[in-house]
């Protein structure tokens, strides 16, 4: 094949990459430009001078620090708890001996994957209000835990099923009971699947917008995506600072992605294929 012919696919793919990556570059450049004038005069190019005070001012003005912390702890806590509850459930239905119940319970959870959860938002709003946790972080944490359960259970159950049954025989010989087998044998062996599920759940919670937007009204409780939207609406005209805000909210995701991209791609696509 001629070299020219060989490079044709790369030309197409590079144009696609340009479309994907250029917006990021535009935002990064804009975030260190002096003001809107500077951005308007020179939208594509490298900044003439680097104004890093945008970052400082955004962190303070927009309370990005507060939102960042809220998002971080809500996302981690909800992901960990849904994995714990999901793993217990998955263990019970895959490794314990309750034949027909196992099948029925597992199928019930599968149904959860088919329900478009946006359309359940209103009753959940009401439920959260009745539980008296509206406008507290629990209003997000508990629904996030519940929402992640079907996916968590399906992936963990598939993994637990593949573990050989000799493990339990040996554990029972050593005098372990079911909770011990779960906590000391099966859970540690499931860690590869748990890591994947954790990342997927974490990203889902970190990015969630609708519940976070409507279930919280106290400003200092808000999560990062909601805080960002609010900041944009307030400081509509300051595009340099807005860009700095975007950089703040995108950087953690990019770092996680850079480190774990193989696992993220695998986990997210696994979930969607089954969903």
């Amino acid at each position: 094949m001629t070299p020219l012919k060989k490079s044709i696919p790369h030309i197409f793919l590079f144009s696609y990459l340009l479309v994907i990556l250029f917006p990021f570059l535009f935002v990064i450049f804009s975030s260190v430009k002096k003001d809107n004038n500077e951005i308007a005069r020179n939208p594509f190019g490298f900044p003439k001078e680097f104004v890093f005070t945008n970052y400082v001012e955004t962190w303070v003005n927009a309370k990005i620090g507060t939102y960042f912390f809220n998002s971080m702890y809500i996302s981690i806590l909800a992901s960990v708890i849904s994995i714990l509850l999901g793993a217990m459930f998955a263990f019970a239905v895959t490794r314990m001996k309750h034949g027909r119940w196992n099948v029925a319970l597992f199928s019930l959870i599968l149904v959860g994957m088919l329900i478009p959860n946006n359309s359940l938002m209103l009753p959940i709003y009401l439920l959260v209000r009745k539980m008296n946790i509206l406008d507290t972080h629990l209003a997000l944490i508990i629904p996030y835990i519940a929402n992640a359960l079907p996916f968590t259970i399906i992936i963990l159950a598939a993994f637990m099923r593949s573990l050989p049954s000799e493990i339990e025989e040996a554990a029972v010989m050593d005098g372990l009971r079911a909770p011990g087998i779960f906590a000391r044998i099966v859970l540690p062996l499931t860690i590869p699947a748990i890591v994947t599920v954790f990342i997927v759940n974490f990203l889902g919670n970190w990015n969630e917008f609708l519940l976070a937007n409507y279930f919280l009204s106290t400003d200092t409780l808000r999560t990062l995506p909601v805080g960002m939207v609010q900041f944009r609406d307030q400081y509509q005209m300051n595009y340099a600072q807005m860009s700095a805000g975007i950089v703040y909210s995108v950087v953690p995701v990019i770092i996680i992605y850079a480190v774990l991209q193989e696992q993220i791609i695998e986990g997210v696509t696994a979930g969607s294929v089954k969903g």
Partner: protein
Amino acid sequence: MNKSLRNPLVYILFIFPALLLFFMFFIYPIFSSIYYSFTSWNGVSANPKFIGFSNYLKALEDERFWESAKNNGWFIVFSCFIQVPLIIFFSLLIANVKKLKGLYKTAVFLPSIMSTAVIGILWGFIYEPNIGLLNKLLGLIGIEPLYWLSDEKYAMFSILLTNAWQWTGFYIIMVLAAILSIPRDLDEAAEIDGATRLQRALSITLPLIKPIISVVIMLSIAGAMKAADIVIVMTKGGPAGSTDVLATYMIKYAITNFKYGYGNTIAVLIFIFTLILTALYQLFIARRSERIEY
């Protein structure tokens, strides 16, 4: 095998928390939505009033409801007829290049892991009429600035474009995974027989990835029916309701206007529409494409 793995008490203890949450946040809400969809209620006062099918009849005559449904339809049309061909095209390209495969795979997926809200803000900036990237680009070829998000003519298209930017890579990775799992010897045999790259793509790869394309279309339909956050962040449904989708219309009604009963009617209708679309797709298209396959 032994008693400790049959212990019913432990079993119940292990399934109970997840099951309880599942009932609270999946099963109960479905029935609650159905119940309230037959009532007139503001969501606050003591007693919802039972009004039968009135809300459903109201929806049938509600022009803005159908306008919103039409916008969901645009999401589906755009993803099936513009995104899917692009997805197949780029997946085939990535599968067949030898160099830089890893780079392409990593980069195309990046937008899909980011918050839709933040992507909405980012693209809002790109669409900004005076200093946004897009109008500056168009300016280079002498096109006057367009009001992407505030002109009724372009607002919906702008949102669709952003949505495509976010999700195309995600589907490319799914299709790519399917292509890469096809046994290589099929392709090599055809290559030895002298088939060109294009011929091989059309007559070997494409038929074999039909099932995954079908999944991509199903996911696009499901995604189109629940699209909401991108609209709320980019246009809040405006200008003049021209970008409202069913989910945002539902939220506006129930939470902002305290029409909780009618809001739930819309929720139930979203659910029913999704079911119908999925069923129709399975019946007429997915099954037929399977028949052609071999």
